[in-house]
């Protein structure tokens, strides 16, 4: 959240690379990247231990959801664990109590997260910057204490154990993490597509305007607060979707899910990947989840030191994160990024064609 210019650069290049002319874009590069991304996503559990692959996918969607808010509305939420974790508990309870299939349970969790996000959003978007972060953190901590104390429902600090993964009686999916990944991936991809769609809609354009110049957006007749509440709710919904799948893939929900460290981790992933790039979250999730998984078995006892050092290096040297820097390098080679950047910062709704 340094200077508005650098963020807006990243937005431009990221959007350009992600395929600019519709989801299955008209541009060649867009097609290629979407294809490549899907191939990698499909191939992931062959190379990475399947439960870890699932974690990567969930954290990636969570980071994309946060970037929707942080990168495109300029609001740093430090309380997104409330939506991820709140949904995790709802999805877990739905699977245990009613035996809902996991996609429905996760969806129910997402709906709960959105319902929770509405009042929180209305109250917190009145502030911005550090105050917004503090207010969201405060609400998340409230939820943490409710979950901790409501032992009958949530299991308190022991967590909600034995969450079943129902999937219409398909045993392979229910029992094996490998097949579960493929059953859950479409939901994750759909969530990402939704985030992409939001960013590249007129709504998304207005959002960027409210971020860069709220006064001007207001003067043009846009209700800035309403837009912010709406994007907050949408972001919470996607975070909830990711949290619900995460909980069911693990078979339990713990206090960790609603703890502030989880909010911190997703901010770390998003910043590492690149703020305002949307897909940066995926790169960030891959790096952080794999790093943590590797370090856990490495015998090195300073996991925080390593992830912290990586974070510092990225923030100091690659201000636009992994994705932002990469796409910037690629864009510079083809000389595309500047045109796109200008057209976006000028508020030009038309997509440039490559």
């Amino acid at each position, binding site marked *: 959240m340094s200077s508005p210019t650098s963020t807006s650069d990243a937005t431009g290049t990221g959007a350009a690379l992600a395929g600019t002319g519709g989801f299955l874009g008209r541009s060649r590069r867009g097609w290629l990247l979407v*294809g490549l991304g899907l191939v990698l996503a499909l191939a992931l559990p062959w190379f990475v231990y399947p439960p870890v692959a699932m974690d990567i996918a969930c954290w990636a969607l969570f980071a994309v959801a946060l970037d929707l808010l942080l990168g495109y509305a300029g609001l740093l939420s430090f309380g997104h664990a409330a939506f991820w974790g709140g949904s995790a508990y709802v999805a877990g309870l739905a699977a245990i109590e009613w035996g809902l299939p996991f996609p429905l349970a996760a969806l129910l969790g997402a709906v709960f997260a959105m319902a929770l996000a509405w009042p929180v959003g209305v109250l917190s978007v009145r502030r911005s910057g550090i105050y917004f972060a503090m207010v969201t953190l405060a609400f998340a901590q409230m939820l943490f204490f409710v979950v901790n104390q409501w032992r009958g429902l949530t299991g308190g600090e022991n967590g909600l154990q034995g969450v079943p993964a129902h999937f219409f009686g398909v045993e392979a999916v229910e029992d094996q993490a490998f097949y579960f990944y493929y059953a859950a991936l479409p939901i994750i991809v759909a969530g990402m597509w939704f985030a992409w769609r939001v960013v590249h809609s007129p709504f998304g354009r207005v959002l960027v305007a409210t971020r860069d110049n709220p006064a001007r957006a207001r003067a043009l007749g846009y209700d800035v607060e309403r837009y912010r509440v709406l994007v907050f709710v949408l972001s919470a919904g996607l975070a909830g979707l990711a949290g619900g799948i995460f909980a069911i893939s693990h078979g*339990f929900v713990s206090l960790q899910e609603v703890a502030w460290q989880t909010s911190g981790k997703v901010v770390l992933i998003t910043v590492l990947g690149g703020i305002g790039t949307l897909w940066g979250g995926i790169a960030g999730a891959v790096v952080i989840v794999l790093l943590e998984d590797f370090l856990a078995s490495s015998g090195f006892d300073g996991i925080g030191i390593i992830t912290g050092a990586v974070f510092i290096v990225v923030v100091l040297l690659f201000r636009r994160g992994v994705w932002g820097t990469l796409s910037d390098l690629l864009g510079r080679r083809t000389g595309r990024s500047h045109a796109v950047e200008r057209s976006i910062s000028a508020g030009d709704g038309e997509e440039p064609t490559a």
Partner: protein
Amino acid sequence: MSTKRIVATAVVTAGVLALSACGNAGPGGAGSDEFTDGKLVLAVLNDQSGVYKDLSGPNSVKAVEMAVADFQERHGDDAVVEDVEVTFADHQNKPDVANTKAQELYDRESADIILDVPTSSAALAVATQAAEKEKLYFNIGAATTELTNAQCNKYTFHWAYDTYQLANATGTAVTEGGATDWQIIYPDYAFGQDMDKSFTAAIEAAGGTVGDHIATPFPNDNFSTFLTRAASAEPDVIGTMQAGGDLINLVKQYNEGGYVDQGIELAVGLMFITDIHSLGVEAFNGVNFAEAWYWNFDDENRAWADRFMEETGTRPSFAHAANYSAATQYLEAVQAEGTDDADTIVGHLEGKEIDDVFLKNGKIRAEDHRVIHDVYLARVKTADEVTEEWDYEEILATIPAEEAFKPVEDSTCSFG
């Protein structure tokens, strides 16, 4: 190249990749019935970097390695399996990580048994995985009684201690020692509430009374108001269920308040020798607490502690000894049965009576897999009583195995 062709290429590549992968790889298969891969793998899953690093951590892995070395020395050429590996992972006290790592250890590193796992939520997550994979799991580091009650399963054993035993040992022994009038201060969350209930039950059964049950926020720094309130009733003893950093703050404030001079003792629900080591004996002067095992208790313990000292440069906590004991008993069971098949080993261990360096008068209860053994009431020595490093505890009383743990009739466990 036209867009269509690129798309076609991408789709074909994806398809080929997916298909070729189907041929040679695949999700990890379940374990076989004989010695999986011709070897035995013992995995330690614990906190290698956080608050429980000293209590269990890397030295638990060392303890398990010692058990393996001793086993190989004992059986030499007769050993039913030659290749015995010890592996480990760090769960960072996060249940999510513990859950994933447990799966990975069972599936990928073909671990036959997982040991240790402190932190209750992580411990319960691993129990779920053990049940699902039908592989063994001996918990040592976690205190939750859920492992041998509602969340128990056929493959999970609880080796060292639990909240019931802690409360029961301290509550009963201190009350029977003459301090009958109690005040209890507990942190207001699941662990504290459970401990408060267990303590009260134990104290009342021993003929004592509990005045106030004072709930404090968790976490919390300032306990002086709670201590003043508890002391105003002029009890014989204040029982505190705080743990970790909160406990340290409370004990400091207890010392500063001069309650010792008023004749009010302090009994602690959950405390480890590593807490005393990090803060020094002065801070805990005269505190009573329950101990599952103490290195300087008798010659057998001391001899093992000396060997442990040679390996690690430090004295063992109860968790290290329990890891050694659990690994040893597992290896002996494998030796006796000639297989690493989990169901056979469970059958062998159920109801078995054991005496080793950690388990004194030990027995593995078949009904709930609670491992019972003698436990102790300890008092922290004063600075001038300490004769060597780690010589911090005086054992005041031994609580016999049968009385120390929750009676088997009261367990809600059933192996479905």
